[in-house]
């Protein structure tokens, strides 16, 4: 057994990483639904889920059980193969895309192996192209689901989604070109490192300042690619019942749901990596005290959870919430006490907090914005986003050329 482990160490590590990432992504997905419902509810002066568990924290679990045990009828007249293939395809592609994202700069050293955070090797030189390749295939899940259901509304949803995704993919790809020109590489790690060119600039060195136009186009196009509000026409419930997944129920529906939320996470990762410095801290590198910020935030949050928990109405909540708070506080304390660990978590901490901010923006938009009309959607994509992103490419390349020509920068 031991010799097998030693001989296939890379394989075993990758397998363990895949299982871990799957577990984490699915859990985060589940709690993203909780987060979304909670935030939207508070925006609309409601409480949101609060019956199952303290603050409704066990709601995702209940939802999951519901999805698993619901009846799963297959409508008559569906194209069986494609009908079953579509949700699988959607989920598999969404999960594949998140496997290509690096989550931290430094490898962790365990059992004599350098283990990078993230499944794909960090020196993957077509990094972002590979990501786009995987997300480009994502449209099939939606389009085929719409077609295979053999029903009017899903077909319309599928048609809308394929037209929408083709249109916005152009703007999405073009808007990234500016960042690629500045970094001179497709590799996600190199793109982040290019933003740390002046360590003293901190937040000012990020791509979002010179590439604001690119970020604007990228984020909007990416929201459209993930079929989220205000671009959720493929599943517009007021016109199309539930759009492409009308005929899907039980776990097949859950698969579409998980795929959508996973692609939200992927887009948030991409936004933070391409435009917001990825795992870079927003503070200048010399401000060493900011390295204690993660622990400080964790400890304060943990204490707040304890304080909130001891006043909770139910006995169960009075036990669970302080326990949770104590665990979070302890985690923060561990980071303070172990300087090595504290240094290691800096990168992942900043990346994850940026991802969290973008996920919040997603939910925020869902809570505030009305849905586009179909012609508005098409006109917006073709007549505004695409020209803007092309202008961005032209301006960026001109500035880079001018720098090389007249200021002699490398």
């Amino acid at each position, binding site marked *: 057994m031991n010799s097998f482990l030693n001989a296939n160490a890379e394989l075993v590590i990758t397998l363990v990483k895949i299982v871990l990432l799957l577990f984490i992504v699915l859990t985060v997905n589940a709690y993203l639904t909780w987060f979304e419902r909670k935030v939207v509810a508070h925006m609309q002066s409601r409480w949101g889920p609060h019956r199952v568990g303290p603050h409704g924290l066990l709601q995702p679990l209940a939802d999951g059980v519901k999805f698993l045990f619901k009846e799963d009828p297959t409508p008559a007249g569906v194209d069986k193969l494609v009908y079953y293939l579509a949700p699988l395809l959607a989920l598999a592609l969404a999960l594949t895309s998140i496997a290509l994202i690096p989550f931290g700069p430094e490898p962790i050293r365990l059992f004599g192996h350098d283990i990078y955070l993230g499944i794909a090797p960090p020196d993957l030189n077509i990094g972002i192209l590979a990501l786009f390749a995987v997300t480009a295939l994502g449209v099939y899940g939606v389009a*085929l689901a719409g077609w295979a259901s053999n029903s009017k509304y899903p077909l319309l949803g599928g048609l809308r989604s394929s037209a929408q995704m083709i249109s916005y993919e152009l703007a999405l790809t073009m808007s990234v070109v500016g960042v690629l020109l500045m970094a001179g590489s497709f590799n996600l790690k190199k793109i982040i490192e290019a933003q740390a060119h002046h360590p003293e600039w901190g937040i000012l060195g990020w791509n979002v300042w010179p590439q604001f136009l690119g970020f604007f186009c990228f984020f909007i196009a990416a929201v459209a690619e993930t079929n989220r509000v205000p671009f959720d026409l493929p599943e517009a419930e007021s016109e199309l019942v539930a759009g492409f997944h009308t005929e899907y129920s039980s776990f097949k529906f859950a698969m579409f749901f998980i795929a959508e939320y996973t692609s939200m996470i992927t887009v948030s990762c991409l936004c933070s990596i391409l435009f917001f410095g990825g795992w870079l801290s927003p503070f200048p590198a010399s401000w060493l005290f900011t390295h204690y910020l993660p622990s400080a935030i964790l400890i304060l949050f943990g204490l707040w959870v304890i304080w909130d928990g001891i006043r909770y109405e139910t006995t169960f909540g009075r036990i669970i919430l302080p326990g949770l708070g104590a665990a979070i506080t302890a985690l923060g304390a561990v980071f303070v006490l172990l300087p090595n660990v504290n240094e290691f978590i800096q990168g992942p901490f900043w990346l994850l907090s940026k991802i969290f901010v973008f996920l919040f923006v997603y939910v925020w938009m869902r809570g505030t914005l009305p849905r586009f009309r179909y012609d508005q959607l098409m006109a917006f994509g073709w007549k505004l986003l695409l020209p803007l992103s092309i202008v961005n490419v032209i301006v960026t390349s001109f500035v880079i050329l001018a720098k090389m020509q007249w200021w002699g920068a490398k």
Partner: protein
Amino acid sequence: MTASLAVFFALAALAVIGAVSLIVQKHPIHSALSLIVVMIALAGLYLLLGAEFVAAVQIIVYGGAIMVLFVFVIMLLNAGVEEHTSISKMAGAPGLLLVVALAGFVAATIARSTESVETTLQTGEIASTLGISNMIFKDFVYPFELTSFLILVAVLGATVLAQREKS
């Protein structure tokens, strides 16, 4: 058998199965799905050949744009199961003959050129994105500009075709 050879045979089998399935399937959507399988298998083969950029472009453009357009049109036109009409004998016989002749010609060419291909194997530089961009923007800059013109013409053509005639 080395690992790369095993990967090659797996991908090659996938591609051939996909291509055969393209012919055998009766419904256009199934044919389109088969073709997508072929394209993904080919992208895998490009990776095996060290052409990462081409592999990515293959999936993004072929898989993510061209085939989506096909699927879109099939859905839009609600294309049903293929009608079976008898092949006209006039076209069928020469067609089959042509396939056989073509296959024979290709096989003969390959069989003859075996030596020359194998001797130059593995002398290649690493196919980098940088190298490709250097080629496109230096050696092939005029063809490259021509393709942009071609795309412009195609866009205009598609727009004109899509326009409904004013009654």
